[in-house]
């Protein structure tokens, strides 16, 4: 249906993690638990010193650094705690940017960027710069940017950490909706009620996976 690939990690601290397409996983743990390193490896920003990481059928641990940017571009969509939008670009241009690096034509870029902005409910804000938008709106632009190249996985690193509770659940709703439409999402969070909205919670402590549970039905 969505994609045939699998997501498998064998981390340093004897971590086995296997994420299937269409899953919505949250990674929990206190600071220093190794979840940031985990995210960097999952996001192809870093490589494991030993073991292997296979993303969508590609062995990232054996992929040369020069190829990693293309993999980040096409297979991964990042959503950060501090949004990480380019302040001089408006919402539309921010969403367009990954497609520019992918070498997609202007008309196609326009079509897909508008589509992505519509999916996050920001069709009326496309000309706004990040500093003209609320935190929740900024994060929605970031989500649109993350999904615009139709990635294998969306990696969200504390996406609600800078948001009030109303915006937090708006964002969570968007993630759930995207997941319902088939997107694979891995989200780091330390808020239990945010994690409980996902379908599976993986807990890290001191660099080890200490718990991996499926949330039955999920909490809305």
């Amino acid at each position, binding site marked *: 249906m969505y994609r045939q690939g699998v997501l498998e990690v064998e981390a340093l601290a004897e971590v086995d993690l296997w994420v299937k397409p269409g899953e919505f996983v949250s990674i929990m743990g206190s600071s220093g638990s190794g979840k940031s390193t985990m995210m960097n490896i999952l996001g192809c920003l870093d490589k494991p010193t030993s073991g292997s990481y296979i993303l969508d059928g590609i062995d990232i641990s054996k992929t040369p650094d020069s190829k990693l940017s293309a993999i980040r571009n096409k297979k991964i969509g990042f959503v950060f705690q501090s949004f990480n939008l*380019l302040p001089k670009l408006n919402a539309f241009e921010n969403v367009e940017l990954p497609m520019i*690096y992918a070498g997609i034509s202007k008309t196609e870029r326009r079509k897909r960027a508008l589509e992505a902005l519509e999916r996050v409910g920001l069709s009326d804000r496309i000309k706004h710069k990040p500093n003209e938008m609320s935190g929740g709106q900024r994060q929605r632009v970031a989500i649109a940017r993350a999904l615009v190249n139709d990635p294998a996985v969306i990696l969200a690193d504390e996406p609600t950490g800078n948001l009030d509770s109303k915006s937090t659940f708006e964002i969570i709703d968007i993630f759930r909706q995207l997941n319902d439409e088939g997107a694979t999402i891995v989200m780091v969070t330390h808020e239990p009620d945010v994690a409980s909205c996902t379908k599976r919670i993986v807990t890290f402590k001191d660099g080890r996976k200490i718990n991996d549970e499926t949330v039955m039905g999920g909490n809305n």
Partner: protein
Amino acid sequence: MHLGENIKSALKNVLSNKMRTFLTMLGIIIGIASVIAITSIGNGSQKEIEDRFDDLGVGRMTVSMRSNSPRNMYTSDALTLDDYELLKDVRGIKYISPTYQANYYSVKLLDPKETNTAQITGVGADYYDIMAPDILYGEYINQENIDNKSKTVVITDTTAQKVFGYCDESVVGQQISIKSWKGSQKFTVEGIVENPNAESEMQYENEYPESIVMPISTAQRLFGQKTLTNITLVAEDPDNTDALGERIVAMLDNFHNTSEKYTCESTTEQLEAMNEVTGTVTLLISGVAAISLIVGGIGVMNIMMVTVTERTREIGIRKSIGARNSDIMFQFVVEAIILTFMGGLLGIVFGWLAGLAAGAILGMESVVSVNSIILAVAISSAIGIIFGVYPAEKAARLDPIEALRYE
């Protein structure tokens, strides 16, 4: 990343901080402007020299003593009409004329109380063909005038205006007074020629002497001299004046039993010599101006380093969404090139204006050549590349994880 997108985004960044951009470009602007201004003045003076020499004619040669000081004029080796007779029939000479030139006398002007210096040139019959002046009225000095030592002169239209107050047919046949410390003598106007420098001389009233031409025989008698100032000739083959010159010098040295006492310079040689001098001077000053370009380039590099540091987080974001190292590198190099390229364009405009202004002040023409513009654009862009690569490479090598963490 597409080049067009890259230039667009680079322009956006460059224009978002106008003051900084302008100050950074200033070094390039000043450098390019001074090079353009200097070369335009250099080109202008070169062109002026060439125009002057065009007036003087092609293939014209002047035979004179090597050291043409007045004392030499009285030695037995001074050129005389005998030398002229000797050279007259040399093969390869088209026209040849002896000349005697003196500035000692003055000419009475319309107002009886006023005089102006006269530059008197005694000439042979070929002189007209050598100089090819435009005759307005009357005739030029001919062989008959020379044989008769007749007191006839050819004057210019400007002199006619000053002496008679008008210049037309009726001036021919009238008399002008040429004054020396011994007293004045009257000469009949045989012809009137156009003064090629009338326009520039007009501004200076009587600063330029009145140019008066008379038969060589008359001039020699007037000044009591048997010598010549020089012998002017035109070669049949203007491209081969060197061999002819050497032959003439050898003949004269042989005749006077001297060694390399005489020279035979062609206008082409003089032109080349003059052009070489102005060319060297222009190159030298341009070189000094080019140093400011290097200083400007270092300024660009400095500001690009600052930009890269300021935009560390942006670089991290771009990398996380898929920018390759080469994309980042290219982005910053393009920004540096845009800075220096725009500086170069502004420099051309300012340099062109400065050249015009300096030309107007110095009374010289300023010529901005297409070559110097192309060169200026190429140099300024090259500076962008040279001084932009290092900061851009630094940006490209940033670790995305650390760049994203940068506040």
